[in-house]
């Protein structure tokens, strides 16, 4: 990661798969900020696109887009 975070702990050999068609960003239930906050709503779209540039966006993102 650049710039280097303050504290990082990685467990080698333990990983998760991300499936672009299903992967989404969302607000946690206890989050004080939720849908409608443009800063995060748009960041979700942006980062989804950055991660899976060549993929098709999931339907809920298509709608937002």
């Amino acid at each position, binding site marked *: 990661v650049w710039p280097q975070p303050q504290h990082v702990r990685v467990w080698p050999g333990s990983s998760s798969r991300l499936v672009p068609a299903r*992967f989404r960003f969302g607000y946690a239930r206890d989050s004080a900020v939720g849908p409608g906050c443009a*800063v995060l709503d748009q960041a979700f779209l942006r980062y989804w696109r950055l991660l899976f540039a060549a993929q098709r966006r999931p339907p809920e993102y298509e709608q937002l887009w």
Partner: protein
Amino acid sequence: EMSCNELLVSVTKPGCEDYPNMDSEESYKLSISEDSFLLTADSVWGALRGLETFSQLVGRAEDGTYYVNKTDIVDFPRFRYRGLLLDTSRHYLPVKAILETLDVMAYNKLNVFHWHIVDDPSFPYESAAFPDLSEKGAYNPITHVYTPNDVKLVIEHARLRGIRVIPEFDTPGHTLSWGPGAPGLLTPCYIGSKPSGAYGPVNPILNSTYQFMAVLFREVSTVFPDFYLHLGGDEVEFTCWRSNPEINSFMKQMGFGQDYTELESFYIQRLLDMVSSYGKGYVVWQEVFDNGVKVKPDTIIHVWKESVPYQHKMAQVTKAGYRALLSAPWYLNHISYGQDWLAAYKVEPLQFAGSSEQKALVIGGEACMWGEYVDATNLTPRLWPRAGAVAERLWSNETVRDLQDAYYRLADFRCKLLGRGIQAEPLFVGYCDHEYSRS
């Protein structure tokens, strides 16, 4: 290997803040386990930083599947001001180039765009109050200007990435482009007893000058929402003032003797008072401090000169109780053969003689990209990934200094930038899995 389909973001404090500011909270925690991804932050700005980190953790296997390793991160910035200066006067930079720069700033967790928008060569800012400034001072008043909509677009693009926009309208020097659109604003230079036809810095002895500045800076204060404006104050050339009989008569009347820094201070003082009255704070180049201008205690002094070692200036500024912003070692428009990112990376902003109270007054730093030899053709590769060295110095822990480790991470990050469509230059020999492609 499990599959997880969601990164949940939890912001603990309510409110989707309007604009980031100097006190914005940017810390975050990221917890990636086999079956859940959670990002926690106090504010949306911290959440943005965490999203960037998450995006850098995701890798792609040879078979094309995306994966992320189990990871826990607790992160926060070392300095709260991590800036980048673009100069849009020496060469006009298209809005698109500015927006792309803001994108890459966000990838680097930089959070202040210092927009050195006007200077001697051109005045591209389209002012509502004084349209003649760009009409007569821009390289081209139709194509080479920043309209009010362009400025709004830049500010909004920056806001959505947690980046503040601090404009600089540098005076009394660096103002030649202001002259054609503001008759009477600049000082007429003389040869003997006759005007030479040339002009120097802003004329500081006329009431009309201050009336003009009052209107312009009121507009600027409204257009740019950040609390801070950069008011410049650097490199004031005294030759023209010295040649002008009216200026000399004023000097005599004011008891300034032959000390033109007194006259400069007289001007700056009035300008700072004016901007304060609009409820704004200000950043000034170090000469304002060097000349002993009386400034508000919360003024930020921008240290840029290399002639006196900058460490001395940082010590002086902070000893006087002012907040300091460091740029002197980070003039990235200066280039050389080889790995010159290393020089930027090795800088330690707090390495000067001073107490811990003094060190606490260093709010951060700023990479500068002056525009004499830079336009949209070479801006991006000259900036990136070199400005990344400054970004890490300002974000990461003081102990993060291993050059070999930094090289591998920066080279990898540069490959990620290529993947994101950014023409970042190579650090040294090597390749990226996905090289830059124009499409």
